[in-house]
């Protein structure tokens, strides 16, 4: 998703303007130096600076920033005290069978942050909000997004060169050195990555995660102009993030957004990556969303939201989520909801598969899910890397068709055009396959068809939902690799009878074919569904909200913030109720169609 942009001449036909996702979500994973990957051929998310070997180092060491995990943790500790945050358990792997890293006694929740990333033609805003448990190893913060870019470097590099060459014919640019690679692409010199800068803005109201990233292998991709941090955190309080920090940092954020956007010559989309349950991600994250709407009304806003699970350890998470939902309802173009539990289950399955020995020997080291780790062993040590990586891959696949060539291109703006029939119903359930068919064999047809079937099964969804038994409003299949129209058609015909589509959109399929597969695979599929199966997630959220709200529990934490009134709560919950009602109405039409007959027109 990162597209590089060279200074004077542009290399890739698209210049992505993306702000790289910030820290939290996208943690850059620290790879062992030996596996340092070459620069991603970014098209979308990076812009590059040419100019000799000098790399503008993000200055992690200069006073302004705390240095490592320790500083961060200390800050966090302070914050926790100051804000009386509900006790934080290391939340994590709740699953049986999967052992969290041994070093997790402390399991610092890695702070979420908001990352705004801009892609090709989009900017990514990474916000804090990413409240997903992070691995504890201080030295290696997992970061999905950047990783994405890095792990498939070879491919990207070669694709990038191809692009550059192709576009050279009609744009004056010459090929850019930065994606040029040796025969096998392996020897892109390490120095070159520094000529890429992520089109991302990292926002967090504490410093730990950001600092970790600045020490990680992707440190060169960011510089201080892309960071916005505070020291005290938002204390799991939406109002603190949205109202307090929102006002305080508004100018700063807008300015940095503008600067990043100025580097894009065709800004198409912002990605906001945040969590819903915390304070910074949900509060400040949705604040940034509003800012983006004001400042760049023409640019699409895609939000990847991590929803809290039922056993969430943040007591106020229902408040935060519902307050944030209202903003998402009103200001986002598309929301990709994600639940940690689902990610965890998926990671667990992969893990079991690898360990069962069945596939262990054949699993490719840099295949989709394990890529961040570089080896399956590391996956074990850092489960959140793998989880974050799923999201990273989600965004990668989402944008692949905009970045690479294919016989049926699908640009980002086509996603909301095709999948959002009514403005508020813009929640898209996603699933990625193959996830644990990690072996790659050369497209034998059965396996290919399995990939399509899996995409509709319950356990491949990134939220806990079952689309098959709910109502589809629309569905998109984004395919990468050696797959042709006939494969698509065959599978659509095959799957259609088992799915319920809304009466007025019986043929609600959108397809994209991108010819470049993810690294290590021959093909992959991202299915996006606008399906009423998101409703239970929202209903559960509402229920948990009401439980607290009836007792007015914890309300005072919010109400003492300037600008926060009780009406905010009632408006938020009625916005959510309306949304649920809209889904209910659609579910009710599951029977025969009720449209007025065509002839009534005349």
């Amino acid at each position, binding site marked *: 998703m990162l597209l590089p942009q060279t200074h004077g001449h542009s290399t890739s036909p698209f210049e992505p303007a993306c702000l790289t996702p910030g820290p939290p979500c996208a943690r850059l994973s620290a790879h062992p130096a030996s596996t340092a990957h070459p620069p991603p051929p970014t098209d979308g998310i990076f812009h590059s600076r040419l100019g000799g070997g000098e790399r503008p180092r993000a200055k992690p060491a200069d006073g302004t920033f705390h240095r490592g995990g320790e500083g961060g943790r200390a800050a966090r500790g302070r914050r926790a005290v100051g804000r009386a945050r509900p006790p934080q358990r290391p939340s994590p792997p709740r699953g049986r069978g999967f052992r969290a890293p041994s070093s997790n006694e402390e399991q610092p929740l890695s702070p979420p942050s908001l990352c705004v990333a801009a892609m090709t033609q989009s900017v990514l805003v990474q916000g804090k909000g990413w409240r997903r448990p992070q691995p504890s190893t201080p030295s290696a913060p997992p970061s999905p997004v950047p990783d994405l870019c890095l792990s498939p470097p070879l491919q990207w590099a070669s694709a990038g060169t191809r692009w550059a060459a192709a576009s050279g014919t009609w744009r004056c640019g010459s090929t850019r050195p930065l994606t040029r690679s040796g025969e096998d692409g392996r020897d892109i010199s390490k120095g070159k990555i520094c000529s890429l800068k992520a089109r991302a803005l990292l926002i967090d109201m504490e410093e730990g995660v950001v600092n970790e990233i600045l020490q990680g292998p992707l440190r060169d991709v960011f510089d201080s102009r892309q960071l916005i941090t505070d020291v005290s955190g938002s204390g799991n309080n939406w109002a603190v993030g949205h109202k307090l920090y929102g006002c305080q940092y508004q100018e700063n954020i807008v300015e940095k957004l503008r600067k990043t956007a100025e580097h894009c010559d065709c800004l198409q989309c912002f990605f906001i990556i945040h969590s819903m349950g915390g304070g910074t991600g949900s509060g400040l994250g949705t604040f940034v969303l509003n800012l983006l709407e004001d400042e760049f009304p023409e640019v699409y806003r895609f939000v990847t939201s991590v929803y809290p699970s039922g056993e969430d350890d943040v007591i106020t998470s229902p408040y935060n989520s519902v307050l944030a939902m209202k903003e998402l309802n009103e200001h986002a173009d598309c929301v990709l909801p994600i639940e940690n539990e689902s990610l965890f289950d998926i990671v667990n399955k992969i893990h079991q598969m690898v360990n069962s020995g069945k596939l262990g020997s054949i699993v490719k080291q840099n295949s989709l899910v394990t890529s961040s780790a570089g080896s399956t062993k590391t996956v074990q040590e850092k489960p959140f890397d793998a989880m974050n990586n799923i999201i990273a891959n989600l965004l990668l696949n989402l944008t692949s068709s905009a970045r690479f060539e294919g016989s049926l291109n699908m640009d980002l*703006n*086509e996603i909301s055009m*095709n999948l959002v029939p*009514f403005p508020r119903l813009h929640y898209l359930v996603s699933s990625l396959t193959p996830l644990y068919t990690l072996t790659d064999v050369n497209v034998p047809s059965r396996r290919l068809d399995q990939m399509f079937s899996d995409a509709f099964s319950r356990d491949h969804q990134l939220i806990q939902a079952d689309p098959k038994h709910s109502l589809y409003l629309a569905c998109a299949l984004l395919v990468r690799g050696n797959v042709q129209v*006939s494969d*698509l058609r065959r599978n659509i015909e095959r799957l259609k009878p088992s799915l319920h589509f809304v009466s007025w959109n019986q043929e609600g*399929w*959108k397809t994209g074919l991108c010819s470049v597969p993810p690294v290590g695979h021959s093909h992959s599929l991202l299915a996006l569904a606008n399906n009423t199966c998101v409703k239970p997630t929202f209903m559960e959220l509402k229920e948990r909200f009401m439980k607290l709200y009836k007792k007015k529990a914890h309300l005072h934490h919010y109400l003492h913030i300037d600008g926060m009134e009780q009406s905010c709560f009632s408006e938020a919950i009625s916005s959510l109720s309306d949304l649920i009602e809209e889904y209910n109405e659609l579910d009710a039409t599951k029977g025969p169609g009720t*449209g007025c007959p*065509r002839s009534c027109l005349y």
Partner: protein
Amino acid sequence: MSIVTVQLGQCGNQIGHEVFNAICSDVHGTHGLCSKKENESYHEASKERFFSEEKSGVPVARAVLVDMEPKVISQTLSIAARSGCWKYDDRSHFCQKQGSGNNWANGYSVHGPKHKDRIMNLVRKEAEKCDRLSGFFTIMSMAGGTGSGLGAFVTQCLKDAFPASFILNHVIWPYGTGEVIVQNYNSVLTLSHLYRSSDALLVHENDVIHKICAQLMNIKQISFRDVNQVIAHQLGSVFQPIYTGAGPLHYSRSPLGDLMETLVPHPEFKMLGLRNIPQMPENSLAYSTFSWPGLIKHLRQMLIANATMEEGIDWQVRPPRPGSSIPSKHSTSKSLHFNTSIANLVLLRGKDMHSADLGSFQDPALYTSWLNPQDAFNLWKTPRAFNKYEKSAALVSNSQFLLKPLDNLVGKAWNMFASKAYIHQYTKFGIEEEDFLDSFTALEQVISSYTTL
């Protein structure tokens, strides 16, 4: 005379590229199984029609490439340049960085007006390169945003800027399922707008071509390229030079003009369908022989039974008896299947075409009552074989071919419109519900006109 091709959107550019490829390989790859003199004049006519000459000697396609994103165009340009036998003009393309996002309104109301001047400049330059301009051939899909929306807009501009030239729109009908979700809206808007400004619409249905690839071409894993190549072959078989009328010594002077004259007798009827025969994998050709009576018999049955390819034709369908033509309105099941034509054009290419007897196409029962069959049917032929087929026949028909798909499409679009789904995406770019209603009305009119033939 020359034709300027305007390729719009991903689909239009991919197909346009294949069309020029097909024409080029027809001209260079074969000797046409005819006299040398014949072959030379064919070459010359074909070249004048589609290519201009550059100093280097490489023919340059008379084409303007337009897309709102750069990938397809840059790929197309470079593949063409690499082929060595022809290329596109390096300056004759226009692209932006961000596509229309499958939104017809975006292409029509935003990108169109914004880029009108630059696009029309390119077209004008291309038109000025022609000694004699016959007209414009635009290639686009109906489903997407750029081809359909911008395509409709550009067609309108062409009509305004070149009122004396013909415009033939080649339109790709999307798959029934699974291309673009808003394809029915986009198609309704495209068709209704094209109906106003275009002289004729030549339609290819993806589903049909896909079936041809699977059943006639025996392709296992069908790619868009395969589909496009079949389309290009069919278009080539119509647009390559051919003698019109009884057998003059010169190849048709105004290819588009002649086509309109024979096929579009009334402005209410502009939808043309294309069938050809034979169609088979290249390596089976050597083992096949064809006879004109056999080909013509099949082609005629394809016409009256509305079959899309030579396999699986319903041989039971017969033209209605002269006496019983009135009750056909009450639709006995047989006459339901019968495909009534307004005008047909058969093109024969290859050996001994003079011996072919087309009398069966002149049956008045095939045509609507208000036209004389002598006017409604035309035959063009040339001894020059096309693209390695020793004998081949193509049929361009203005008939009820498209009635059913059109009715389906409008029905689905209406269904969606009734629930107001996706409308907000269009109003965002200035296309209001009123515009939709106008388009629906226009197409219902077309449907009823064709139905009552």
